[in-house]
């Protein structure tokens, strides 16, 4: 479970987050949508203990990000949009390194890793990561983030730049995690993906949550056929 309460953050004199409230529940995929610069990545960086909040707080499975960052990180797996992997290590070594840092016994980590390899169709993990394509790298990135079996998973643009088969594999994987009862917060620009995966969505614009609800409810509210159209209406309504 993720609970964000009145989250505020500024960079210099610019207030980037102006009191965000959000709740993501176990067994559901919660979407965080917004145009570029809306505050999605800042929210995710505060959630993952990289940045500090200037007001409000976030709890991850009951642990406060500001007071218990170590416990938060234990309960959390994050895939950052721009995160890379160690090029001179193999995919397996990358994953097992993070498992080790999370105190996962090697035999447990390996078992989990091979299961994820089968789900995502990874058959290249013994080669050095420097030889991977972006899609191959992203799959390793995803497995690395959840190798310690965290109950909460945050995905920032997890399919950005991937081809269709890789995107499909990642989406299936997200559904699997949801079935397992994990809390998933998904930030994406791909509205078709939102409709396919998300149970509940928050639309963030200029540092504020401007709309929330199930995809169906939002579409009905704005009288649109797709979430994309509803999203554009929400954003355009809140231009000022």
């Amino acid at each position, binding site marked *: 479970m993720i609970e964000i309460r009145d989250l505020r953050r500024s960079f210099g004199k610019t207030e980037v987050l102006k009191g965000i409230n959000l709740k993501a529940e176990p067994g559901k995929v919660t979407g965080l949508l917004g145009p570029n610069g809306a505050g999605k990545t800042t929210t995710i960086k505060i959630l993952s203990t990289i940045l500090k909040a200037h007001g409000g707080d976030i709890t991850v499975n009951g642990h406060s990000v500001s007071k218990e960052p170590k416990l938060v990180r234990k309960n*959390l797996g994050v895939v950052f949009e721009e995160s890379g992997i160690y090029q001179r290590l193999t995919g397996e070594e990358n994953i097992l390194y993070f498992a080790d840092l999370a105190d996962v016994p090697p035999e447990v980590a390996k078992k989990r890793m091979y299961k994820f390899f089968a789900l995502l169709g990874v058959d290249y993990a013994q080669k050095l990561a420097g030889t991977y394509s972006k899609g191959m790298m992203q799959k390793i*990135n995803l497995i690395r983030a959840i190798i310690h079996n965290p109950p909460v998973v945050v995905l920032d643009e997890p399919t950005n730049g991937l081809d269709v088969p890789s995107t499909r594999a990642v989406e299936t994987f997200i559904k699997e995690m949801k079935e397992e009862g994990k809390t998933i917060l998904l930030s994406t620009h791909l509205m078709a993906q939102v409709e396919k995966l998300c149970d509940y969505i928050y639309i963030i614009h200029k540092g504020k949550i401007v709309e929330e609800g199930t995809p169906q409810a939002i579409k009905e509210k704005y009288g649109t056929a797709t979430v994309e159209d509803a999203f554009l209406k929400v954003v355009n309504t809140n231009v000022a």
Partner: protein
Amino acid sequence: MWRKVWSVVRKELKDLFREKRTIFMTIILPAILMPAILISMFYLQTNTFEKEAVQAKTIAIQTGDTMAKHYAEILKAKKIIENYIEVDDISKAIKDGKALTGFSIKQSGDNIVIETFYNVEKSSGGKKIQAIANIIKEMYVAEYLQKHGLPPVNMLTQIKANPVGDPLAMAKAMTGYMLGLFLVIFTTIGNTYLGADIGAGEKERGTLLPLLSSPADRKSIATGKWVALTITNLISATALLAGEGFAIWYMIKQSLQMGDEKIDFSMMGQFITPSTIVMLFLAAILLALFGAAVQLIISMWSKTLREAQLYLGQLSLLVFLPAMAIIPTMISGGKLAMWAFYIPIVNTMALVYNAVMGQLTTLHIVIAFGANIIVAAIAIVIVVKILDMEQVILRT
């Protein structure tokens, strides 16, 4: 915590040593370059001395200078010189390399004037011909006394030499100074790339954010990276010392085979003993501890790999500034003040110098290690703080 530290260390070493540049800069360069420099310097010096030695055996005298010829014959018979040549112009003969020195004698009544010629561009000629001129002077006086029925001069005066102090002191001082200097230069320069990669490289590759959002605490990450860098610094220093060791062993062997008065490196065997080598390794550990701490701070602080390499490259030259304070003492073979053992880098050079000079005490070692471990601990605290500083983590 230590399990995670070890995990970071293993990953960093694996990551670093899979890079060919790392192996080249850390092991091959210090191990090969050092003996290459030392042995080529040795041969250059040896050739120069050998050439001068051959020239020095032949002395030039003026054609028609009967008195010079008379004494040259005596010197040759007494094996003080090997040969002499008669030339029209002594200066020209010396300039042309036919002889290293020469002399002429002009007589006026009972008095004689001995003129010496030598090449000021060479190191050994002046003293040698001066000594020969003194011998000629003594021989002339002896002949003069004998001619006038007086006792020979060597019955009147005798000179006995009593050298005071350690005859190897200067050789020790120079060796200690050079070894310390090489150790500092090559260990710091050799690891510039590694130092840069371990922090700034993480930022550039985009692996820092996943690492910092992993369950590992900042202290384990910082300590693990520091230990990994210390190990690579130590590998580099060991390669360097092995290279230096080989070069010294080679030079000692070569100069012994020559067995004459040329540069005699065999004396180095008297003060580079197994215990000196142990002390050199201690000094290397000392340098590795401190160097890793500084490299890590700069690397973490830098925006990019290139920026970190630039800072670390410049830093490896800056490290000599504090060392300048003790260089005059080391070159003159003096005793180092205790403060030198408190300052990192300076204490590495001081430890090497004192080890070679045979002046090292347990207190020196304890102070030097204590100082560097404290500095390294402070550095780890700084790196942990840096890893919590948003403006540093997000600098890309």
